[in-house]
């Protein structure tokens, strides 16, 4: 799920001059905010211990005590990380618009284009319901089909909410693995689709369309506006997902304390069929990263294998049934099947790879 970002407002009145330098008052506010954030963040462990063991009088080491400690530590930690990163990404995204990204990608050679498209997919703001207009806009402007797919695969799969939650709950190594493999899948799947030469499987009306989008003016934003975008992103994204994070961590905390170890090993372990089964189960499931990561964390804790769980998570986030149904409006069935097949195969490869090496 990629959020729409209000960065795309064409402002006809904008002057062509570069944004003015950062005002001192904004700099001060930013530094003060960051300082406060870090000061609070380093106190979380102590605060959680105080809440669980002193205030509620639970015994350290007991089931209920540990589950409560886990909840009171992880919830504020993840929410604080989420706020910081979503704010930063919101400001970063104000430098990118779908219009600008299209200009960069139009006419790029395939291999280079696939890499660029996958990277731009992370930072370009667009709402998931814009996938079809965006597809039309890219393809009609001469962005190669495979490059367009690299963008459309990377944009939902590699997103800041998933990365923050993976980092906060499972550590930086798993987060880095997810980022790296997500990008590789987007690049290779897009490249493969490009190689297959399936342009005639785009719906005819899209191919016959000639659009001229050059009348949408580029905007020049001031720093104040860019930081405003950061704030809006926090309000929109954190405001929407916090409840899933809290519920997910609460469920996770419960599983930590009460579900027997090794339960998941028998169904989400390293059996040969576990990875394809995880992908097949994941496709019709539609959830955002905020809801799925705490569950994933709990599954891992109970003996599920990392490769199987990563494959499951990627299938849930990157391949969704509703999106596929919408894409049918611009793609013929064969290209839809190839898209699902290639991305599904990439996800399975990642699953098997990590089950073998870890």
């Amino acid at each position: 799920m990629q959020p729409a970002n209000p960065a795309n407002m064409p402002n006809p009145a904008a002057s062509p001059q570069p944004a003015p330098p950062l005002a001192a008052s904004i700099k001060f506010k930013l530094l003060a905010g960051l300082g406060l954030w870090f000061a609070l963040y380093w106190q979380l462990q102590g605060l959680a211990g105080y809440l669980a063991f002193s205030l509620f009088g639970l015994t350290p080491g007991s089931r209920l005590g540990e589950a409560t400690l886990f909840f009171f530590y992880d919830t504020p930690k993840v929410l604080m990380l989420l706020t910081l990163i979503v704010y930063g990404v919101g400001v970063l995204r104000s430098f990118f618009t779908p219009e600008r990204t299209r200009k960069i990608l139009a006419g790029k050679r395939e291999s280079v284009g696939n890499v660029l498209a996958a990277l731009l997919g992370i930072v370009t703001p667009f709402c998931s319901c814009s996938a079809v207009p965006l597809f039309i806009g890219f393809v009609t402007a001469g962005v190669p089909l495979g490059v367009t797919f690299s963008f459309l695969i990377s944009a939902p799969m590699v997103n800041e909410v998933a990365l923050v939650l993976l980092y906060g709950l499972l550590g930086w190594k798993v987060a880095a693995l997810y980022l790296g493999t997500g990008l590789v899948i987007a690049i290779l799947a897009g490249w493969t689709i490009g190689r297959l030469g399936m342009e005639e499987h785009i719906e005819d009306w899209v191919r016959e369309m000639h659009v001229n989008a050059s009348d949408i003016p580029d905007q020049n934003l001031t720093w104040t506006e860019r930081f405003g975008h950061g704030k809006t992103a926090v309000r929109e994204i954190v405001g929407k997902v916090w409840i899933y994070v809290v519920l997910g961590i609460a469920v996770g905390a419960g599983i930590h304390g009460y579900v027997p170890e090794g339960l998941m090993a028998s169904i989400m372990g390293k059996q040969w069929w576990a990875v394809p089964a995880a992908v097949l189960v994941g496709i019709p499931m539609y959830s955002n990263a905020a809801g799925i990561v705490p569950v994933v964390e709990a599954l891992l804790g109970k003996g599920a294998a990392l490769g199987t769980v990563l494959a499951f998570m990627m299938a849930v986030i990157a391949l969704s049934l509703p999106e596929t149904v919408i894409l049918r409006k611009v793609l013929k069935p064969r290209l839809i099947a190839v898209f699902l097949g290639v991305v599904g195969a990439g996800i399975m490869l990642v699953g098997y790879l990590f089950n073998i090496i870890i």
Partner: protein
Amino acid sequence: MEIKVLGPGCAKCGEAEKIMRAAVEEAGVAATIEKVSDFQQIAKFGVFSTPAVVIDGQIKCVGKVPGKSEALAWLGR
């Protein structure tokens, strides 16, 4: 005045339409508001990030829900 709100029909597009309706009412101008959700129609405007607002054929904003004050400014208020 002819106002078109382009969007396939997600929550944000509905919000954009609501804002435009409220702005028209507040400004008291005579205007028709049309929601365009057909992808082919949207693409013809050259718009590929939604929601977008088009007034009398001129694209006013793309890829975001406009603010009310912004909308009022487009209506000349």
